[in-house]
């Protein structure tokens, strides 16, 4: 059993696919380094991921009026209608806002989670005293590289 250092890494997966087994090695590396790993996701993770993390909180997709459920395309610009509402939901939902507030490291596990983590990081910069602002990174490999000894 790994002893936690008290540092919490919050993984955020907002994409439509299941957080899969590719995450397991990274999660294990973080836990071996003494971090507590919590996953927030839209879709239930694979069994291996669920077993690897300390806790999972599901955050269903926001209900939006969507045009056929597809990304909105303006010329060459494609906008995923779930991205920003998903970000707001992460910060405001009862189930997740305290997790975000207490996390030491915020990780956007997939592209869809980037607005959510970016927004959470900005909010933390405004609200927390300097020195307690969480790290915010894109991708689990980056979180592992920064949060584990070389």
């Amino acid at each position, binding site marked *: 059993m790994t002893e936690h250092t008290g540092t919490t890494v919050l993984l955020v997966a907002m994409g439509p696919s299941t957080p899969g087994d590719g995450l397991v090695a990274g999660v294990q590396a973080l836990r071996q380094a003494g971090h507590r790993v919590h996953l927030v996701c839209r879709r239930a993770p694979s069994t291996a991921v669920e077993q690897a993390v300390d806790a999972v909180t599901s955050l269903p997709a926001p209900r939006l009026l969507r045009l056929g459920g597809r990304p909105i395309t303006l010329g060459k610009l494609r906008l995923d209608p779930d991205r920003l509402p998903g970000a707001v939901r992460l910060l405001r939902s009862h189930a997740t806002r305290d997790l975000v507030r207490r996390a030491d490291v915020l990780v956007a596990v997939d592209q869809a989670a980037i607005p959510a983590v*970016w927004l959470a990081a900005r909010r933390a910069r405004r609200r927390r005293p300097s020195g307690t602002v969480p790290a915010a990174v894109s991708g689990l490999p*980056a979180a592992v590289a920064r949060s584990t000894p070389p």
Partner: protein
Amino acid sequence: MTDQGQGQPHVLYVAWGFPPARTGGVHRALATANAFAADGWRVSVITAPREVFRDVTGSDEELESLLDQRVTVIRVPFDWPAQGTDLHAWPLTRVLAPRLWSKIRVRRDLRAFPEVGYGPWRHRIEAAALDLHARVPIDLVVATTNPQVSVTPGVRLAAEHGVPHVVDFRDAWTFHTYSGSRRLSGQSQAGRWEARAIGTAAEVWFVNEPLRRWHAATYPDAAARMHVVMNGYDRDLPPPLPFADRPPQADGAPAALIVGYLGTLTPVVPLRELVEGWQHAVAAEHPELDGARAVLRGYLGYYATPDPALAALVDAAAPSGMRYAGPVSKTEVAQVYAGFDVLLLALGGGEYVTSGKVFEYASTGLPIVSVLSPGNAAAEVLAGYPRWHPATDLSPAAITTALVSAARDARAADSAARAAKAQDAARAFRRDVQLAPRIAALRNLVGAPAGQVTR
């Protein structure tokens, strides 16, 4: 222009990937800087900051300890926004419209120099080189590529101050080494830069003869200034322990023959073939491979976290005695080789691709099983190595034959004598042996031949 006070010629070495980077070619860069220092040159190195390697490419802190203390390292700020993972640093446009942001970024990169990601570094390294030249006159610039932007300080110092420069093409620029055809036309911006760099260089180095030949044919006016500086190994290793002398295992069972791989396993390595070949060999129950195990060391993929697809391939072979045992620091290499009885060399690419690993493998004196893509240049290097056991193709049967032959070699009664002969044969592949003639020629070029270091 040599340093009259100390009688030292001053070389500026430009290498984006330099210790503690664990990027491709870093060992060649380290060895080149050290070889110039050992030959009595004052050596300054322009490279990227440590954080770039720590945060993006992965780093090996131990590598820095191998750098000659006399070398001065100048770390020039390098922004790599596309690889930046710190979301605090991301602008809103990147968050909301990543493709648009990326398009704008690429255009900005190419404005300074035709190389995405690295182009903007040009102005910074040119300024650093000019500043250094103003303080401590530079006699020679050596740039190692890729990234290709590294050639720019040498080209500029040659144009403005008449300082000779050398381009060390570890890889090719406009030529695709894997496909063997042109990647960028000679009329493209990159093509024109390549022509300019080669046209003004005092010497141009390549890692193998096929690459030199292609460039000599493309730039015939510069052909006489083109040289092959092969990769090599850095330090002699002690003779390997013969398998027969290995102590029994902890439970009293006889020692298991260890077949080892050491190196980065990327998607271009024929790993699937290697795994299938190993499984086939074990299943065939050859007595030479009785109880043998395969151990893979090094990075699995290009990044610090193992590539899941490659990891899954290796995991699936666990029942046959194959396992992945993680990366190895450069300082642990000798110890890891000492635990192997047979080496596996698996490489992708064709006649233009030579891995640096093949030279280090040869320095061990151990039997080497090669699993190579057809025409790989490593075969040419290994041709004179007496303990080479090539798989004739990538089929499981061919790999099995090579493994059995190598295992027999490792178990031979005269294994120690065979290893000594193999290590002797490999000595020509020492990096300093490869670099020495070129450094001597460059000493003459800058007017500081050995023994007459002031002019």
